[in-house]
């Protein structure tokens, strides 16, 4: 495993932005995770070698932050917020519905490798809950119908554009 030429250029630039190369641990891990979908042991070794730091330091980072994953997951990872505001507005119903539609439990991946379902803590979208994150994209104001449609769209490769929040008005 190696960094691509474009990535190497980016690394050279990043090195000029921090006084200590160890600071590049998170940026480089993001770089790999974006490309590969997860951060393998091989990737850990690559980052440690690039930054000339002990491997365990990189492993600590991979395991401590909740967004880095060590193993390949579904093509789409559905991360549904189950924190306070979303919970009050019915996130559990949305989660249950996803489980039913995809026939998986929280933490599992569909057999076709398409979807992984996870519950996560508050994602800063409490005014537009229930909500979930898929990759870089937030899906807000979810209910059973809407989430089903989103799964369908994701499966069909239909992109959703990310827009600033649009807050609802309730009766």
């Amino acid at each position, binding site marked *: 495993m190696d960094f691509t030429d474009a990535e190497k250029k980016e690394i050279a630039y990043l090195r000029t932005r921090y006084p200590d190369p160890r600071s590049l641990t998170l940026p480089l891990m993001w770089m790999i995770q974006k490309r590969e979908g997860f951060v393998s*042991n091989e990737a*850990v070794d690559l980052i*440690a070698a690039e930054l000339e730091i*002990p491997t*365990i*330091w990189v*492993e*600590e980072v991979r*395991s*401590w932050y909740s967004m880095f994953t060590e193993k390949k997951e579904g093509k789409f990872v559905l991360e549904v917020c189950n924190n306070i505001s979303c919970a009050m507005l019915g996130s559990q119903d949305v989660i249950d519905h996803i489980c039913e539609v995809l026939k998986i439990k929280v933490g599992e991946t569909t057999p076709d490798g398409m979807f992984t379902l996870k519950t996560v803590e508050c994602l800063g979208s409490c005014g537009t809950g229930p909500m979930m994150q898929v990759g870089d994209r937030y899906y807000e104001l979810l209910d059973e119908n809407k989430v089903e449609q989103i799964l369908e769209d994701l499966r069909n490769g239909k992109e959703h554009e990310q827009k600033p929040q649009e807050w609802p008005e309730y009766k």
Partner: protein
Amino acid sequence: MKEVTLTVDGKKITVPAGTLLIDACEQNGIYIPRFCYHKHLFPSGNCRMCLVTIEKNPKPQPSCMTPVADGMVVHTNTPEVAEIRKAVLEFILINHPLDCPICDKAGECMLQDQYMEFSGDKSRFNETKVAKEKLYHFGEKIVYDAERCILCSRCVRITREVSKTNKLGILERGDRSYVALAHGDTLDDDPYAYCVTDNCPVGALTPTYFRFKERVWYLHKTPSVCAGCSRGCNIWIETKDNVIYRVRPRENDAVNKSWMCDFGREYYIYPPKNRAAGVKINHRAVDYGKFVSEVASLLKEHTKETAFVLSAYATNEELTLAKQLTEHLGIKGIFHKKDRVWQESTGEIREDDILIKEDKTPNMAGVKNAFPDAKDINDMVISDFKYAVVWGPGAPLDKVSGLELIVISAMVDQVWDKAKYNLAGRISAEKHGSFTNFEGITQDFRRAIKGENNYDELTFFVDLLKELGVKPIGRTVQEIQNAK
């Protein structure tokens, strides 16, 4: 040095500026319980066992992270502080297994001891404990039990600050955290790995050589000095029924702090196979008295033709008598040698900037103090001599093989095999004495185990002197040291 005065529990104490509160208290007879703090590591302030209250400070403060300040008023014996300690112990214990009956640390466990001293309360925790890996092999030398681990991070800091291998880290977060090595790594090539087991406050890190071998309260601890190199790390040799069960560093700020290297330790744990035994002339066992008188008359007769080769494993007290002997006889050909040299093939480290020294013998400094005029054996002119007393192993065969040899050594080597006269000597664990390390620090050690089928060199020199009609400077280590 600047000093500051503060008040602890109503008592005024004065300590050097910059002293940490936890140490300032301890130096003045007030012991503050702790887990993560270790006086030879940077404080991490995470276990919270050492919290104390400081007047004008709204929150209890970790005494291990707080430097003393002039006029500080500290309380360590209030009900509030007592309650904090109980609470920290309760928190630690909620996810701690009840392993004491099968835990090697029982009897010297900081958690057990501090629980007895500062709590004793029954746990109010009735939930499910977090289950973790109980047998994680950190290589062949060390085993980790994540359930027993209290996450004090001492071991992580040891690999960061002492051995500088940075091998250990803590993965995951919250109460799922555990100590780990990088994937595929082991602690086997960390030259100070066993230190993590000594300094783990609980039984989470244990050395495989000692696992389930013996309860610690049955072990007899003897203060000794490692003979592995010229650092002279202070150690405890722990024995039962004349067998070494365990070796651990003995704290000494000036020499080895709280550490020792694994080579030194394994030297005692896995005793060398090539131990010399018995007393022989012409390879036949003889009576010790006969040996002494034959050697005495040989030396007396051939003084000028005898080379006297010193051992850097010799104790200072033995050297004193050896000097008395050679001076009395007028032996001039005196040489020193390296009894043991670095051998790359064993994986041993040549030298580092931590403890390990290139001189792999414990008392070259003592040899040079006692015999400042001794020459290096490599400069010996063979034709000058017909006889040689070779003391200790490691003499170059080409220098001595043509001579008639009297070998006094704890180890068998090629020179031993070539000798006409053989007397098996003792290793430092088997005797009393002192070594002088490379910095000139002289340190006493006590006998931890009895020698078997071998002879104390000190007694041999006493007997030799007596045979020659000379009154020895002393008959015991104590007498010789007092005579100086």
